[in-house]
């Protein structure tokens, strides 16, 4: 206890919500501590009382003394966080011992205002995920926010882990915020990342569902604070928020306990603000404001594929696109289980080079035509040759887009594989051919001396027709390598 | 009597006379031809014999000429050959001498060269040894320095660690001292200070609060 300090006494308490009086010069987001060491932060200030959300579990009695702490709601950030798992207050939870903090590590506040327009830069670079379906058809840019929607068991988490693992050696820092997931899931995630040597450039910020609601509520704020630290150093950051639906539910719990009037689906009226002011902190920044970029991938779990509920629609309106995962596609074996027709990337097209753009337009055309023709194909026994071609091309495309977990395909190979579908080499082959020989073909374009020039020349091509012509020349080499 | 002869018989008779005349003409011409022919063939034979004679003469003339020419040629060839053989013999002997001289020269030179190379190799080897010695000694000195300096660094850091530890422990002890003192004071004062004393202290605190304008 210091000589002179501001104190407050408990007026009333409800679970993790405590009302204090006193504390004359307190501000929102200051920290207070009770005499038995339980900490809380100031959520709101009324005329005669102060609302505190407790982050530590302790018994609160009326008239208990709370003293004001000198620090505000924040945590110390630094490079030592890489490879570690922490909780939102900066305490390590991975059992690897205390964090090696230095004295001059900055302590950043969790609640920062999102930078304004003057600090943003046009998104021009593509964020390569290593997954063919995303990089070609629904590209993501560096600094974009892309919402990941999907039912339970539709492969979202595995997809996100793949993206993280495929960022090895690219200099991208990955931050995974696990908001109120089960402790087992967090443990599995950390182990998977460790087994794939992905932990050295990843930070995990996790709260299990058994922790106090205010602590779970802070998780995305901590994630963004850490991301901003790295972004200001000029790094590219990938931030995954899994999942925002949980965050919304926790905020609803806190608001309802605090007697805030419930709105639609019983969420409080400012639920949009809570998510929007977080997601606005992501983006691509000018060198004057640090350089770097924060690409955010918020995740929402849907109920029975219903994306018209409040939270999914809110998030869809504040992000630059969304990927819709369907569990039906997942059980059919399409991995990643993204519904291409219902997914969109509003900023990604400007980051793709011209060749990929043209190729992806063509592929989307075929996919949409095939969807139309599919109904006919079910009813007629004999189809004209063009229809058969389109349907077969669609099958080939889907076979090329299927990608197993923890595999990365470089960008040029992705383009080549998709362009091969339009060459005579693959024109008549069934999709089982691709499934069998995809790996062989991909390797061939990297290792065979006859084919390496094609791979290298992709950067200079301006037209997908030219690429297809080049690949016609590669036909004989490939036929030799892939005996039927 | 004689009637006019039948025209047919007239014509036939005319024709026969003509035929006989033609036949005589023809015979006469044939005889002349054959005579001419005989004459021509005789002339031809004569001419041919003349030609053959002339050819024979020419042939013998040529032959004699040729013989003589061949002989003359053969003589010349022989003399020339003699001359060539002589010159070549000379040149061979000259070049032989040259070769022998050259070989001798070569031998001498190679012997010299061997000598020279041996001596230079010896000198080089000596030089290399000297350099090796000096480098080795430098290297040893350097290693020794490095080892000593690294050991010193280690020692310094260890000493520092020990210092830090010592300071930490001393600080702990200090805090313990203070804590013990506080405990002692609590126990003692609780027993010793009378109620009046305690109250006095409280009044003092209140007075101080007033002075410090803590309570306005």
């Amino acid at each position, binding site marked *: 206890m210091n000589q002179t300090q*501001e104190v407050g006494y408990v007026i009333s308490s409800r679970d993790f919500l405590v009302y204090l009086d006193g504390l004359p010069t307190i501000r929102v987001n200051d920290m207070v501590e009770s005499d038995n060491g339980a900490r809380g932060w100031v959520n709101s200030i009324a005329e005669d009382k102060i609302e505190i959300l407790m982050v530590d579990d302790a018994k609160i009695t009326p008239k208990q003394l709370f003293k004001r702490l000198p620090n505000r709601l924040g945590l110390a950030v630094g490079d030592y966080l890489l490879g570690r798992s922490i909780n939102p207050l900066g305490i390590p939870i991975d059992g690897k011992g205390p964090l090696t903090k230095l004295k001059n590590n900055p302590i950043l506040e969790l609640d920062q205002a999102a930078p304004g327009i003057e600090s943003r830069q046009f998104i021009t670079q593509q964020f390569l995920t290593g997954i063919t379906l995303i990089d070609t058809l629904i590209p993501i840019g560096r600094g974009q926010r892309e919402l990941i929607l999907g039912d339970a068991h539709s492969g979202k988490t595995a997809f996100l882990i793949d993206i993280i693992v495929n960022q090895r050696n690219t200099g991208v820092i990955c931050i995974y915020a696990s908001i109120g997931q089960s402790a087992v899931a967090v443990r599995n995630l950390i182990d998977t990342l460790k087994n794939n040597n992905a932990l050295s450039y990843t930070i995990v910020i996790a709260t299990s569902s058994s922790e106090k609601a205010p602590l779970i509520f802070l998780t995305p704020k901590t994630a963004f604070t850490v991301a901003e630290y790295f972004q200001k150093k000029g790094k590219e950051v990938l931030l995954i928020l899994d999942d925002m639906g949980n965050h919304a539910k926790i905020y609803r719990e806190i608001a309802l306990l605090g007697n805030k009037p419930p709105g639609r689906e019983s969420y409080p009226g400012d639920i949009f603000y809570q998510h929007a002011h977080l997601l606005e902190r992501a983006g691509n920044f000018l060198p004057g404001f640090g350089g770097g970029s924060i690409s955010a991938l918020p995740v929402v779990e849907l109920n029975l594929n219903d994306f018209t509920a409040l939270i999914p629609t809110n998030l869809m309106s504040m992000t630059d696109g969304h990927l819709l995962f369907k569990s039906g596609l997942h059980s059919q074996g399409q991995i990643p289980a993204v519904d291409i027709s219902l997914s969109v990337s509003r900023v990604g097209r400007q980051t793709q080079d011209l060749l990929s753009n043209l190729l992806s337009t063509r592929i989307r055309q075929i996919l949409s035509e095939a969807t139309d023709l599919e109904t006919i194909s079910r009813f007629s026994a004999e189809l004209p040759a063009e229809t058969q071609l389109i349907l077969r091309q669609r099958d080939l495309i889907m076979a090329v887009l299927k990608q197993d977990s923890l595999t990365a395909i470089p960008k040029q190979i992705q383009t080549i594989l998709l362009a091969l579908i339009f060459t005579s080499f693959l024109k008549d082959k069934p999709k089982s051919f691709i499934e069998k020989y995809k790996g062989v073909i991909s390797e061939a374009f990297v290792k065979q001396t006859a084919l390496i020039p094609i791979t290298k020349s992709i950067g200079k091509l301006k037209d997908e027709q030219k690429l297809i012509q080049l690949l016609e020349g590669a036909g004989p080499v490939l036929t030799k390598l892939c005996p039927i | 009597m004689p009637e006019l002869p039948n025209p047919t018989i007239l014509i036939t008779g005319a024709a026969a006379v003509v035929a006989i005349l033609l036949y005589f003409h023809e015979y006469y011409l044939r005889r002349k031809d054959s005579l001419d022919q005989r004459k021509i063939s005789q002339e031809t034979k004569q001419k041919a014999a003349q030609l053959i004679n002339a050819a024979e003469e020419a042939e013998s003339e040529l032959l004699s000429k040729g013989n003589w020419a061949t002989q003359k040629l053969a003589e010349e060839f022989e003399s020339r050959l003699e001359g060539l053989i002589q010159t070549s013999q000379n040149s061979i002997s000259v070049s032989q001498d040259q070769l022998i001289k050259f070989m001798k020269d070569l031998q001498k030179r190679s012997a010299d060269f061997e000598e020279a190379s041996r001596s230079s190799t010896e000198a080089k080897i000596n030089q290399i040894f000297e350099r090796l010695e000096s480098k080795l000694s430098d290297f040893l000195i350097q290693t020794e320095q490095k080892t000593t300096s690294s050991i010193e660094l280690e020692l310094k850091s260890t000493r520092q660690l020990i210092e830090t530890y010592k300071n930490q422990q001393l600080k702990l002890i200090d805090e313990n001292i203070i804590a013990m003192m506080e405990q002692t004071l609590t126990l003692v004062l609780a027993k010793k200070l009378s109620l009046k004393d305690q109250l006095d202290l409280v009044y003092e605190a209140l007075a101080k609060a007033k002075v410090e304008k803590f309570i306005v």
Partner: protein
Amino acid sequence: MRHWQRLKWRSSSFKIMDEIFSTILNETFTLTQLKLRLRILKSHLLNTFFGSDSPAEPLNQLDLDWQSSLPKTFYQHFNKDNVYDIFKDLESSLNQLQVLTIYLVFEVNDQISKELGTVARKTFNKPSLLLDIKYDSRLIAGCSLVWKGVYHDYSLISKIEGKKAEILQSFKKFLR
């Protein structure tokens, strides 16, 4: 009631309340005591007005003395109509009271708390100052005060914490 009549009634009721309050506060020095006395006063008055056969609550001597010391004029303020209103106002104005919280190392009885209260009121020149006495044995001697949400420690322990270095030095003089 008309508006001006209501205002008049309110202002007069304020005056009445102030009088009642000051009378009560004359002899009451701690918050706990105040709340207790309000309660017994209320129950006594309700008993008197609305009568009941329940036996009166046993009170300690001090409170009984106080009760009997209240002048008759005091009781005249109350009647059947306004008793509830007055007490409602009194309870709501409890929150506006200025309370000095004081942490002591020893337990106090009524006598001492009265003394303390008088001295405090005199020192700070606030006749209606109320004390809230709490106990904290970590303060070795003296007391610490909390006023308007600010905590100041006037106890011995804070002095020791402040002079740690000197104390340690003088201890170390005894080391070999």
